[in-house]
């Protein structure tokens, strides 16, 4: 096991708090230099997994190997990682300079060397003149950059980011997102970021680990996760997804509400004849046309302006009690169709991007 080439190897890791299992048999391999994101709703175990990797909470069973060495039960100060938290966790009574230098000096670096390192890092994070300030005198984004510099100053092999951007406002967040990505690529440091923000994960990570209820639902590139969600949960959690109740009438035909259309095949699912299932399709893969064209008749019940497009909420005309369907309509086609609340349109599905999922059992 320890001969594996992966930089970080997690084998069958479990963590129980009394009766509750926060992590169930997690296995994962992370390569040197990768940017990995743990994505999931709160309580899914992503932070617990990160804390187990850092040694802050020890797992109940399983093993963790970092750079070929087993680290499962090592205390955090004996591991090789830097960490950044949502709360910044800067030492409040030390200046920015001292915050970064304290770890360096503790490792036996001379005062002068440490200060040289600190000024190099302050340049890197774009705060060259803030060395003498206290954390309280900096903005949230600046504090988080200092925290990042402090974590990176000791050149750790692994960078752990625990929701690093969640406390910041939207503009600062996008800006810092780019900075972190650039820095990570420049240093080539293996990085794990925990986040509940799918946009953050999709835009930053090389690979995303989607978690739910203590298990990994899917590991893959952002494109994989978005286009080929491995489970109903992933499809629902990442991006917007319509689940349209559909049945396979026979080998040639499928039916939604009253409309029959040519049967399509899914990469992930093959329904039996007569089976009811959910057709999963994102709003951008649906299109609305004039009502006398071919397609499933729908009625527009609300339109939300999104800038480049309208997100149009529709109901199946002949099954108005089923869940609403969201369709992204470009501004130009919306005006061509003279789309407004109450309009009846024909809806068409881009078959290449559609997936199928078995019906949820409502017994549960």
């Amino acid at each position, binding site marked *: *096991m*320890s001969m594996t080439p992966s930089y970080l190897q997690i084998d069958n890791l479990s963590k129980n708090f009394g009766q509750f299992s926060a992590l169930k048999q997690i296995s994962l391999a992370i390569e040197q230099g990768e940017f990995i994101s743990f994505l999931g709703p709160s309580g899914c175990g992503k932070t617990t997994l990160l804390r187990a990797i*850092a*040694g*802050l909470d020890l797992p109940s069973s399983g093993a963790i190997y970092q750079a070929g060495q*087993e680290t499962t*039960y*090592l*205390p*955090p*100060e*004996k*591991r090789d*990682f*830097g*960490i950044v*938290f949502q*709360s*910044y*966790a800067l*030492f*409040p*009574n*030390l200046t920015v300079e001292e915050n970064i230098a*304290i*770890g360096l000096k*503790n*490792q036996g670096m001379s005062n002068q060397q440490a200060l040289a390192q600190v000024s190099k890092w302050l340049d890197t994070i774009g705060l060259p003149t803030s060395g003498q300030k*206290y*954390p*309280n*005198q900096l903005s949230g984004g600046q504090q988080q950059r200092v*925290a990042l510099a*402090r*974590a990176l*100053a*000791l050149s*750790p092999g692994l960078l*752990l980011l*625990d929701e690093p951007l969640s406390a910041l406002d939207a503009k600062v967040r996008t800006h810092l997102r780019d900075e972190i990505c650039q820095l990570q690529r420049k240093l080539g440091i293996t990085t794990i970021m925990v986040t509940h923000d799918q946009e953050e994960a999709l835009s930053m990570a090389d690979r995303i680990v989607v978690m739910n209820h203590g298990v990994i639902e899917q590991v893959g590139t952002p494109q994989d996760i978005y286009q080929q969600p491995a489970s109903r949960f992933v499809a629902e959690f990442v991006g917007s997804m319509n689940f349209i109740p559909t049945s396979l009438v026979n080998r040639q035909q499928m039916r939604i509400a009253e409309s029959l259309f040519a049967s399509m095949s899914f990469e992930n699912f093959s329904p039996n004849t007569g089976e009811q299932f959910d057709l999963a399709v994102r709003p951008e893969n649906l299109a609305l046309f004039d009502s006398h064209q071919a397609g499933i008749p729908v009625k527009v019940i609300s339109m939300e302006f999104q800038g480049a497009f309208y997100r149009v909420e529709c109901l199946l005309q002949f099954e108005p009690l089923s869940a609403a369907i969201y369709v992204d309509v470009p501004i130009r086609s919306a005006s061509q169709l003279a789309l407004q609340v109450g309009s009846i349109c024909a809806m068409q599905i881009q078959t290449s991007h559609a997936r199928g999922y078995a019906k949820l059992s409502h017994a549960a």
Partner: protein
Amino acid sequence: MESIMEPSQVQTASPSWLHKISKDRVILFALLSVLFVVMWLFIVMPLWAMLKKSVQNGQGDFVGLANFSHYFASASLWHSLSNTLALGVLVTGVVGVLAFGYAYALTRSCMPFKGLFKVLGSAPILAPSLLPAISLIFLFGKQGIAKEWLAGESVYGIIGISLGLIYWTFPHALMILTTSLRTSDARLYEAARALKTSPVKTFFVVTLPAAKYGLISTLIVVFTLVVCDFGVPKVIGGGYNVLATDIFKQVVGQQNFAMGAVTSMLLLLPALLAFVVDRWVQKKQKSLFDTRSVAYQPAPNSVRDGLCFAYCSVISLAVIGVLAMAVYGSLVTFWPWNTTLTLNNYNFAQISTYGWSPYWNSLTLASWTALLGTGLIFVGAYGVEKGRVYAPLRQLIQMLSVVPMAVPGLVLGLGYIFFFNDASNPLSFLYGGMTILVINTVVHYYTVGHMTALTALKQLPTEIEATAASVNLPQYKLFICVTVPVCLPAILDIAGYLFINALTTTSAVVFLYSTDTIPASVSVLNMDDAGQTGSAAAMAVMIMLSAAAAKMAHMFIGGWLEARTQAWRKR
């Protein structure tokens, strides 16, 4: 497969065995273990010894609940019990109303001299409870200068005890109520005005409910203080018996330890009940005011401000009057026959065999209590709050840390007698020394210090420890470089609190002193007993002056430290 892998794993594991041991954990474990042993020896064991004593006869044989049934059969118990409860209800009610008005004036009006009123309102806390009692004797006693005010009633009894305890518990109530009234959300008042609610209705709909938990907390604290205090009833109680004086009489007067233990168990009940309710209230109160709330700022209103000013002036005059009477009484040659002013009463060397030694003993006791107590409490609270491992041990210590709050001083002192004055106990050498007084006082006031430390520590995010570990900074270095400097104001508060309470306490130490270690507060009691009221007043004044000096030093050092070490708090 398994059998092939195992040996190789063992091989890689054994050389790194030492490597795996975390120095931080070793230190934390040592620290928590020491703290646990200390708490076990000085909190749990004495209480257990007392519990045991209450079910034994004079020879130490187990007699079950015989002591209790004997005790409950006596009419004097029921008398003391009803006296104690009557006193508790009366004083609690009066102090609740008086202090609420005073706190309201301080926080919700724009009257002038607020700072002065605040100082005067909390001044009685600097004196031992004996001081108001002695002062009341000067004022309303048989030779009192204002005894006509009582219209023929004797001050010795429930009147004197109530007045003394009202005076002494007032600042405690004031402190809690001011805090709870100050943390009121301004937006609730704006909403009330927007809804055109009358000021009187606003008071009942917004002000009172917001202060509800503070008020409950106040009533509980005052009730506990009243029921457990024995200084005031001892000095001015006359024939009015309460549970606290019963214990004293049984133990010191009749040497009836078993009955003392039984009475203590009884005294533990209301204190325990009050403690449980108070915990519940504290939990409820948390969510009322958060970081998003906007603090209420009163606007000038001449009628209200004038009334508040008049009210506070009356109370402040009463506070000054009682203090001044004690000082005056201590300066009078022989009350009331020779009223020439003199410092003879302060010449303790001539008056008592102990001379000035009780005073120096008290200063020694207070200094050691502040020094050792603050260290122990803060380091202990750090271990409990910021330790990463050993959760069960930390929870146990947290539980033990709040126990002293529920134990009245007299009961704790009695427990110490039973446990340490026992030849078979290897720790019995402590008995009668200064060490046991220091330990007992630290334990008695542990909980408040612990809570103060926890509040300060909670302001630092828990992630700080994790970050330090990730940059390989040992936890003790983090503690010295970050935690202590950040929490310095709180540490100073704990030290000041311990110092002043060690100076003024009478309850627990009254059972534990020896001729070499008699504290000033106990000597006040003894001198008063011996009829040397003037000197008793003089010693009480000395205690008050020292406490006031300590308080001023605390404020001065606090300000100086703030300027030097808290620069980072400014934006």
